[in-house]
């Protein structure tokens, strides 16, 4: 195959026009096979998954903290507002408003060019920005899940003499997780796709690898279609896993 590619390349250099099939072969070979370029895509996929995982963990941790603060604040009795919780709640609200009210791309650029202007580790800065962004959305998912649990459950726990925190962890959260997990799965898929944005700040993930190859071959179609296909396959794979997982959850609901 390599010999064929070399021969065809010679033809192009000498100004000869290739047939459609030959042209297709040359461009495909250039995009994926020439000097083992497919390895760059694989490396890119690895980074994409790593960035997604870091962002998801960060998002879930941040989101859980923010959601707990906001729910805890909302569930205080009237006339008994805790000042410290009030301050944290205000911070949490500003965080969610700002993150949800500004474009992801702008946040990425601010993180890389203003906040971490001196950092050269673009991939990790990107993962951090993605995680912070995701945290705002995850906090709303978790908050919704916690609020969706019947208020009678909190009353029942408290009426037995359990304190707020114990009731939260033993009774409310285990029930909220059933509605939170499927939505978190969707968030994971969103993150997987959004991780391609960190290319603009130099994060070395899948799309970055494709762009590097495009810049050498001046041929965008195959690298871009290839990248799109990889994302599509990944998303379909995780969607299928998620659907399976949701069916399991539903099954244990019926017990």
């Amino acid at each position, binding site marked *: 195959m390599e010999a064929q590619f070399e021969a065809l390349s010679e033809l192009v250099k000498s100004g000869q026009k290739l047939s459609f099939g030959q042209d297709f072969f040359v461009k495909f070979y250039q995009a994926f096979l020439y000097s083992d370029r497919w390895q760059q895509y694989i490396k890119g996929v690895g980074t994409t998954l790593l960035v997604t995982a870091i962002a998801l963990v960060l998002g879930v941790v941040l989101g859980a903290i923010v959601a707990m603060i906001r729910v805890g604040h909302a569930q205080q009795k009237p006339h008994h507002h805790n000042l410290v919780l009030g301050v944290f709640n205000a911070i949490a609200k500003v965080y969610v408003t700002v993150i949800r009210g500004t474009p992801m791309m702008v946040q990425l650029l601010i993180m890389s060019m203003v906040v971490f202007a001196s950092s050269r580790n673009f991939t990790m800065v990107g993962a951090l920005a993605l995680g912070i962004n995701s945290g705002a959305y995850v906090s709303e998912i978790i908050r919704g899940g916690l609020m969706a649990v*019947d208020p009678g459950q909190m*009353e029942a*726990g408290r009426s*037995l003499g359990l*304190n707020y925190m114990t009731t939260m962890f033993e009774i409310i959260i285990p029930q909220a997780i059933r509605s939170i997990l499927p939505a978190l799965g969707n968030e994971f898929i969103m993150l997987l796709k959004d991780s391609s944005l960190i290319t603009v700040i130099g994060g070395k993930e899948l799309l970055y690898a494709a762009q590097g190859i495009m810049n050498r071959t001046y041929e965008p179609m195959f690298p871009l279609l290839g990248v799109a296909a990889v994302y599509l396959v990944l998303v379909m794979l995780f969607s299928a896993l998620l659907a399976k997982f949701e069916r399991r959850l539903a099954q244990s609901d019926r017990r």
Partner: protein
Amino acid sequence: MIDVKGLKKSYGGLQVLKGVDLTINKGDCVVLVGPSGCGKSTFLRCLNHLEEPDGGHIIFNGKEVTDHDIDHVRQKMGMVFQHFNLFPHLTVKKNITLAPVRLGLMKQDEADKRAMELLGRIGLADKADTYPNMLSGGQKQRIAIVRALAMNPDVLLFDEPTSALDPEMVGEVLELMKELARGGMTMVCVTHEMGFAREVANRIIFIDEGVVKVDKPPKEFFANPENERLKAFLSKVL
């Protein structure tokens, strides 16, 4: 055992309780009745601070109930809800043992033993390892009562315990409540079951317009209702 003085509670501009005074003695089975919206459930929920009173005092076992040690008060003041509020993610046995174990009152194996004993008493020992949504309404409510009993409370509060049940299941729950009352358990019940009130209660309290209007043993309560509002109420429910 419980001494309520001048209990007040409003929602927004609406004053539901306008100064309720009531003493509940050890061994009492007090039934609260009254037209809907009169505040009887609110009163009950104020006793263990599920609703925050706006004014007045609640003295429980000689100590004023405050938010500060409310968790301790609630350990001794069991509550049974209209909608059972069993924990759907836990087995029946775990529902019963969760609080005593988490609060360090019992070891898990002790609590398990006690749970099985209580479940045996209501004939549901075979349901110990099932989840609440496999049970009928009546079974759920009886287990909710057992869950409250497992804390060895000094008093049990019942908030319309049979209102959410199918008619054929009301009997089994009332039967268990009767048994508890006969066993000397102090109980405060909000209920529409006049038969239960007549047969089991030693005092019936008629709450209307946010205050206690009548407080009498059942015989007198039903035989000669002097209060006009009570007459009107009884003519509707009997």
